């Protein structure tokens, strides 16, 4: 615990340091002891899995159940064949990412583009269905993820989708991402600009 004198000294030092810096924020070593400890119960409803599967809530689902939920709650926006509509297209598009044709759009779907299966669980769980977000149970979300992955030919068998095996599913575009390499180095501008 801090004494009043120590706190005063730290506040003085911090104030002086900040005066020299107009952009970056100086590290602040003071504990103010505001707020309260968050209990496990406070945090139990939050879900945010990591790509290696840590943080996935316990549960499992089946592709058959996923099909049933999909037709009931998802097809109106994402299409009977997962072809998209009001919501994103979910399957297809493999082979379209390599493309330098301004007239043809690459097709970015769960099947062709998404690098991690855990993202599918995470997104459905937090934000879907669009008009009643957060209404699906964990088992329902595992089922839906399984159905979408099976329709995209990413999983071939009918095994249950669980918190244990979801992160192990290898997504087709797993190696499709590269780190930010900017700032880019540009060639000299064209000396003879023209209307394009």
């Amino acid at each position, binding site marked *: 615990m801090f004494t009043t004198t120590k706190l005063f000294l730290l506040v003085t030092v911090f104030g002086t340091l900040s005066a020299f810096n107009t952009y970056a924020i100086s*590290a602040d070593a003071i504990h103010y002891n505001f707020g309260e400890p968050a209990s496990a119960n406070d945090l139990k409803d939050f879900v945010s899995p990591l790509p290696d599967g840590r943080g996935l809530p316990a549960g499992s689902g089946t592709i058959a159940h996923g099909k049933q939920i999909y037709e009931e709650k998802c097809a109106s926006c994402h299409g009977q064949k997962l072809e998209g509509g009001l919501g994103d297209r979910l399957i297809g598009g493999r082979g379209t990412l390599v493309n330098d044709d*301004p007239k043809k*759009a690459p097709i970015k779907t769960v099947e062709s583009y998404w690098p991690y299966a855990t993202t599918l669980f995470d997104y459905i769980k937090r934000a879907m269905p669009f008009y009643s977000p957060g209404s699906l149970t964990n088992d329902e979300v595992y089922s839906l993820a399984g159905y979408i992955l099976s329709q995209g030919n990413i999983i071939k068998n009918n095994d249950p989708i669980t918190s244990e095996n979801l992160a192990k599913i290898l997504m087709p575009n797993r190696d499709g*991402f590269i780190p930010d390499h900017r700032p880019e180095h540009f060639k000299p501008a064209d000396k003879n*600009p023209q209307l394009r």
Partner: protein
Amino acid sequence: MTIFEPDHDHDTKSKLKIASLVEAEEAFLAKARISANSVYFSPNVGSAGSAKGIEHLQRPQGRRHFLASVAALAGSGVAGMALAQTTPPSPENKAPAGAVWRPVPEDATKTQGVAIGEDGGYGTRSQFETEVRWRFTTKTPFSSWSMTPLEHGVGIITPSGLHFERDHGGIATIDPATHKLFVHGMVKQPKKFSMSDVKRFPSISRIHFIECSGNGLTEWSKPTLKTVQGTHGLVSTSEWTGVPLSIILNEVGVRTGAKWLLVEGGDASVMTRSIPLEKAMKDCFLAYGQNGEAIRPEQGYPLRLIVPGYEGNTHIKWVRRIELADMPFMTREETSKYTDLLPNGKAVQFSMIMEAKSVITRPSGEMVLPGRGFYEITGMAWSGRGRIKRVDVSTDGGRTWKPAQLQDPILPVCQTRFRYPWVWNGKEAILQSRCVDETGYVQPTLGQLIDIRGLNGPIGSVYHLNAIQSWKVDTEGRVSNVHYY
């Protein structure tokens, strides 16, 4: 309206999106062209324009018509102002959004004005000011965006009510009395904070721009939208006030090995992004203030993360939770959405810094220069890497460049206003601005960007288009969006 021919073998959604945006802008322009106060006011100029129309435009009409006002000064002056006083503010005789309609006396010096306090204690803008954000006409209004009318802006601050929006699940309505911020994960003591706890911490205020990395996505392969609001309206600047994230993280104690933090919004999309811990400790803050008052609901009331210089999507609104981890969470937004797909099939990930960019806001697309003579070319420049060092302006399509004046204050990660005096000689001109930031980065031409990023589809690699913008002035003074490089 079809901008790009539908191709049934490929996903047409992005093409339809562009068509929707063009329609939204057209609907806006149709109203603006007949509004005397709009910078786009042009009653007698048809879509094709005509010499007769231009001649008519040389007579003063709008009170605040930026370009026509030049003619008013040069020509009939006082007569023009008298004309404006008797012009109704809008054809419907109805106040625009954010204003209250009041009858206009013949002479305001001959009668008492509106009583003090009649506004209930919170002011409104003038009933003669009509600029608004316009929305991308998605099928659902809950996941959409609205754009800032940059062409009307003066100075560097965006009025809070005109700050652009991007919402993925509507605008959350949150009572600050019950709102909680949870901080947990790789920390020594998980904690929860009420809004009054958050406001007890030492605070900072910073003037920063926020730009959506999708700003300009329609403009990769051909000039598509017509106005600067359409081509550049997903950038705005506010003064933000809040508590440094480093203070909050110190309060919970970051555990060794933590490298990233997930910031989560409390809206219907439960928006999440992973932020590098190093960035969080350097300059991020949780803002509860915007331009001297509480942050607006559509900007994340009661609490929004500010990540200076990073793409707008990382500035999570309605923040309710922060979780620390040893790796990024790979959420939907940072894998399937805000990544830059290159022609070789690889996508750049965590490309979060907004590179230096500038644009001329006046004159800009769809305005009409009423005649030869003096115009002040003005616009904005900004960089996610620091301060703007220099802005050059070209009136000949980039063959020659002259330095523009920069208006103080020139702040890091903030829009900087530039000005350049210009006398139009009545000949065709291509107006461009090019900025340099304090790291020496020079704003590229669109051709240079495309050389690196390619054009994989009508909207290219979608994000981070920061190319030099070209506005063509034709011999009749009409300004249009062109690609010139």
